C-alpha cells in the first residue's frame, strides 16, 4: 500500500532534487546542447558576487518582516473575531477571501494602489507629505512587497489562529477572570501559551511561504527592483532559471536555498519546539 506514495515522493521530490544537484555543477547553453562540467564554479561565482550576498540580507529582512507582521496581524484579527458576537460569520468570511487571490494578482493589485501617479494610497501619502515612488526608492519597494505578501497570507494564518482560539476551553478563561486577570493578562498567561502549537506550526509555514511562495508577488510588483532592492533568493532562482535561461547558476542557487531551509527547519524543531506545549 505504501508503493504509490513512495513512487510519488521519488518522482516529484527526490528525482528533481537530484537533477538540481547534478545541474549545479555544469554550465550549459539554453538548449542544453553544450554541457560542460565545471565542478563548484557556479557556487564560487555566486559567493564572489556581492549582489548575490546582498540578496541574503534582502531575504532576511523580507522573511522576518512578512512572518512577524503576518502572525501578529492575523492573531490580533483572530482574537477579536473570536470575541465578536454579532456579524461574526460575515467578518470571518471577509478575512478569508484574500487567500483565494492568485499571488501574481496580489502583486498587480497592490502596485495599482501604490502607483506613484494614479494610486489611491500614494495619493493619500502625498497629503501627509510622503512622496511615494517604489520605482526608484528601494525602501518603498520593500514596504510594498511586504504589505502585499502579508496581506495574501493573513487569511491562512487567521483560519488556524481562530480554530486554535476556539479550541481553548472556556472554563480556563472564566477561571482566569475569576482570579481577577484582565484581558491582556488572560491573553498572555492563558491564551497565548495554549496557542503555542498553532503559533509554532504557522511560524514554520510562514517562513517557508516568505522564502518560496512570494516570487510571483515580487515578479509582478517590482521585478526584484529597483536596483535589486527586492530581489529575494527565490526570485533570483526564478529569474536566472526561467528568464535568463542560466540553468547552472539557477540550480546552484537552489541547492544553497535548500540547505538554508534544511538548517532553518532543524533549528525551528530543535529549539523553538521545546517551548511549545502540546
Amino acid at each position, binding site marked *: 500500500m505504501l508503493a504509490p506514495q513512495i513512487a510519488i515522493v521519488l518522482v*516529484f*521530490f*527526490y528525482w*528533481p*532534487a537530484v*537533477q*538540481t544537484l547534478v*545541474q549545479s555543477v555544469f*554550465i*550549459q*547553453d*539554453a*538548449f*542544453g*546542447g*553544450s554541457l*560542460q562540467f565545471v565542478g563548484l564554479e557556479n557556487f564560487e561565482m555566486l559567493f564572489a558576487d556581492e549582489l548575490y550576498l546582498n540578496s541574503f540580507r534582502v531575504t532576511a529582512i523580507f522573511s522576518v518582516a512578512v512572518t512577524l507582521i503576518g502572525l501578529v496581524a492575523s492573531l490580533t484579527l483572530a482574537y477579536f473575531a473570536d470575541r465578536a458576537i454579532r456579524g461574526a460569520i460575515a467578518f470571518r468570511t471577509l478575512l478569508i477571501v484574500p487567500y483565494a487571490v492568485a499571488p501574481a494578482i496580489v502583486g498587480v493589485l497592490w502596485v495599482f494602489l501604490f502607483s506613484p*501617479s494614479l494610486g489611491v494610497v500614494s495619493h493619500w501619502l502625498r497629503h501627509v507629505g510622503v512622496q511615494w515612488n517604489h*520605482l*526608484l*526608492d*528601494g525602501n518603498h519597494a520593500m514596504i510594498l512587497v511586504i504589505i502585499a505578501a502579508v496581506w495574501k497570507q493573513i487569511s491562512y494564518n487567521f483560519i488556524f489562529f481562530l480554530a486554535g482560539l476556539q479550541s481553548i476551553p472556556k472554563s480556563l478563561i472564566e477561571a482566569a477572570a475569576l482570579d481577577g486577570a484582565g484581558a491582556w493578562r488572560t491573553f498572555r498567561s492563558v491564551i497565548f501559551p495554549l496557542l503555542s502549537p498553532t503559533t509554532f506550526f504557522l511560524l*514554520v509555514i510562514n517562513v*517557508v511561504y516568505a*522564502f*518560496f511562495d512570494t516570487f510571483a508577488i515580487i515578479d509582478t510588483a517590482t*521585478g526584484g*527592483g*529597483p*536596483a*535589486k532592492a527586492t530581489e529575494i533568493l*527565490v526570485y533570483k*532562482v*526564478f529569474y536566472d*532559471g*526561467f*528568464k*535568463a*535561461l*542560466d*540553468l547552472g547558476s*539557477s*540550480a546552484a542557487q*537552489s*541547492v544553497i*536555498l*535548500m540547505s538554508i*531551509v*534544511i538548517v532553518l*527547519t532543524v533549528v525551528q524543531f530543535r529549539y523553538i519546539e521545546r517551548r511549545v506545549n502540546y
Partner: protein
Amino acid sequence: MNASVPTHLPSWPRGALSAAVATAALVLAMPASAQTEIQWWHSMTSANNDRVNALAEGFNKSQSEYRVVPIYKGGYAESMTAGIAAFRAGNAPHIIQIFEVGTATMMSAKGAIVPVEKLMKDAGLKFDRQAYVPAVAGYYTTSDGQMLSFPFNSSTTVFYYNKDAFAKAGIDKVPQTWPEVAAAAGKLKASGFACAYTTSFPSWVHLESFSAWHNVPFATEQNGFGGPNARLTIDTPLHERHLNNLAQWARDGWFQYAGRGAEGDSKFASGECAMGTASSAAYANIKRNAEFDFGIARLPYYSDVQGAPQNTVIGGASLWVMAGRPAAEYKGVARFFEFLSSPENQAAWHQGTGYLPLTLAAYELTKQSGFYEKNPGTDISVEQMIVKTTDKSRGIRLGNFLQIRDVNHEEMESLFAGKQTAKQALQKMTTRGNDLLARFERTARN
C-alpha cells in the same frame, strides 16, 4: 515540512511543462485529419493578437493542405522558455516568436533551429535577400549573409509629443536634439505639467538606440555581430553626458522614470507626461487612448556629435523555425512565410500596428496608398531605419542580453535615485555586463 519544494524549480520545464506541451499537442492534433498542422507560438496580445489570428486564418483559407494554429504562449520571456523546454523534450512547435534580445541565444543553438533561407530553398520557394529592408533583416542575418529567422514585428525608438501641451506652453518648434528637449521640458514644467518627459524601455532607448543613432559602438565585435566574444563599450564621455543629463532632469522634476518596460507609453497616452520616447509600435495604442493631439518625431540626438544622426536600432521579435519536425511539415511553414511576406499582408501589418515594414515593396505600397500623408509621423520610424547602416549602427546582438538590459536598468535606477553618478553607473554596467558576456561566450557553440 517539505524542504525540497524549491529544488524542482529549475528542472520543472523538463517534466511538467513537456507533459503539458505533449497534452496540448495531442489535443490540437486531433481535429486535423487530412491537413497538416503548423503550430505557431506567439506573444501578441489584444489588437495584435487579433491580427495574428487573422493572418493565420487568411493563410488557412488560401489553401487546403496546411493549417496554421496560432497559440498565445505568454510574454516574450515565458514563450521562449516554454519553446526551449519543448525542444529539450523533443516536442518543439514549428514556429516560435522570439524577442530580439533572445536572438544571439537562438543563433548559437545551431542544431535547434532551421535557418529561414534554407527552409525556403528546401521547399523550392523563391527567396530574395534584396527584397527585405536591410536594417531589419540584417539583424537576423549571420556574418556570412544567411538570414536565420523571419523578421515579423520590428519596431524602433521614436519621440512622441503632446501638441496641445506644446501649444499651452508656447513651444512652436518640435525638439530635434536633447538640449532642445530640455528647453521644452523647462517650459512645460513652467506651464504646469508635473511630468514633462518620460521614457519606455530605458536601456533600449537611452543606451542601445542612443549609441547607433550617434554612430558609436555599444559593444566590440560590431556590437556582437562578429561573434560571441563581444564586450561592452559604453563607458564613454558621450554616454556619461547623456545619463548625466537624464539624472539632472530627474532632479529638476522634468523627467519621470516610469519603469523598465512599456510603462512610459501609458504615462504619455494618459496625458500625464507631455513628451515621451517609446517604441514606434506604441502608435496604435497611443492613438486609441490619447484624448489630445499628438505628434511623432525622430529620436532626439546631440547635434555636436559627428555622424549623428545615423540610424536607430530595432526591437520587437522575429519568427524562428524549430528543428526536429518531420520534413514534410516544413514545406507548410515555408508556404506560410511566403504568405506573410506578400506586400499586401506586410503593408497591412505595418499600417495597422506601427511595426516596421519587412520588405521594401510593402513600404512602397504604403507610400503610394497615401497612408503616410493621412497619418503624419507614421513614416518617421521607417525613415530612421532605411538609411545605409554602419558596423556600429547595424544593431546590437549580444548573448545574455536580457540580463544585460536588466543590469543597465538597475544601474540607471540607482543613478536616478541619486545613489551614484553617471560615471559609476556606466562602469558598473560595463563590468557586470562583461561578466555576463564572458559566461555566454563559454557556452556559445560558434
